[in-house]
């Protein structure tokens, strides 16, 4: 269905899945992303999931809900989720909209996200 460049990529590094969103996604694309990612978490028995949302122009109520759902489904399968790369103005808007990340840990970038997953819960820098 998609003949153009990939909208998202999901890579495995050890027991961690790194999912990068490369462009603004519409609702059906977000749903497909959620399905793919949750499928892979189960398949690879991952312990950690990093979602890089730096390319999202907007995280509105549906996108926020999708991220929360992914984190919740990952948790039920024994994996922890960290969201990285939320742009400052996007974070500001999410708070004003009344849609935090719902307790999902966030980190500045991929590196920090990986450190957070390997460093355990102590390193949580919550932004919700």
């Amino acid at each position, binding site marked *: 269905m998609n003949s153009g460049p990939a909208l998202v990529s999901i890579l495995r590094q050890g027991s961690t899945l790194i999912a990068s969103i490369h462009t*603004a*996604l*519409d*609702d*059906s*694309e977000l749903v497909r992303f959620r399905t793919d990612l949750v499928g892979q978490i189960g398949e690879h028995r991952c312990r950690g999931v990093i979602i890089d949302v730096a390319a999202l*122009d*907007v*995280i*509105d*109520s*549906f996108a926020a*809900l999708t991220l929360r759902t992914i984190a919740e489904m990952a948790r039920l399968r024994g994996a922890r989720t960290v969201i990285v790369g939320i*742009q*400052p*103005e*996007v974070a*500001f*808007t999410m708070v*004003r*909209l*009344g*849609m935090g990340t719902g307790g999902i840990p966030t980190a500045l970038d991929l590196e920090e996200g990986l450190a957070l997953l390997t460093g355990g819960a102590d390193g949580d820098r919550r932004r919700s």
Partner: protein
Amino acid sequence: MTPSQSAEDADLAGDSGRRLAGEDLTELLAIVRRVVGARVGSLPIAEDLVQETLTRVLAAAPSVDPGLLEPYAIVTAKNLVASMWRDDDRKRRNQHRAADLRAPESPEAQALIDEERSAMASALGRLDEHERALLIEHELRGTDTRTIAEEEGTTPGAVAARLSRSRARLRVEYVLGLDSGDPPTDRCRPVLLALSSADRRRQRELDAATHLFNCDFCGRLSEPLLARGQRQDGVLRIPIAADPDIVKARGSVRELAGRLGFSRTDLTVLATAVSELCRNIVRFAGSGELLVELLEEPRPGVRVTARDRGPGIADLEAALRDGVSTYGGLGLGLPGVRRLMDEFAITSEPGAGTTVTITIWGKDPTT
């Protein structure tokens, strides 16, 4: 920063949208049917022409004085019938060009290109030097309003306002240049300019309605200045019918607001609010549209009207309360949108549709 919402706000904001919502639309439909019926009888194409007329009138409605809609509908219907008989393909292409001057050049007959080029050249020639310089700087060199404002020691909003006036004039002169005849009266040019610039006060002052009724020349030329739902003077109409439209719409709105020199935060806030409103349209009404207007007073701002003819919201008060859930564990997102925006107004009628109007004003970075 206080969001305002009341019936009065909604009245103000709804204006043309409301006017067309109920009986007026039915009335307009009857008039258009009569005009079309008188000319093509009961040919199968009649209903198509009626629908096409209504579509164009609705698209132009935000920039037309409500008192002008009826003559405008009649003129549009007459023109459509005439162009159907003549199968006037060239004219239609020019309509498109008149509405969106930056449309990409498609391969066409050389004669047509030459004709358009000379119409554009003579249109540019009729503008004064400042208008011409501004248009060339912005439209051809791509200099943004912020940079121009800095060079001239003024505000991006003031530059945007001047640009919009100059574009309106250029469109009028361009359409006049394409038409072989001269305007039959002194009033024609000012009327066309008032239509092209969507200046309702001026439209009323000139009694443009009566003029359009009586002047065939302006009847013919006014349509390309208003119709087609392309961008016209900062009024952008975006049809919304499916998920991908949501992403496109918020991108277009962001792009347009970016020209006013809005901050990244304001652009994101606006894009997010637009995203929520578009989603409501797709989920609940199936389809609808956004009208995006650039505002100049008291400072640069953007107003977005999201409207649909969907089922409407039975309990508005409940929909505006946080935590009301309608689909997938989410509400309509309306309380959030209201919090994000400087102004917020909503009208909804069960069975007839919903109109939400939001406004955000640019924050002056110097204060």
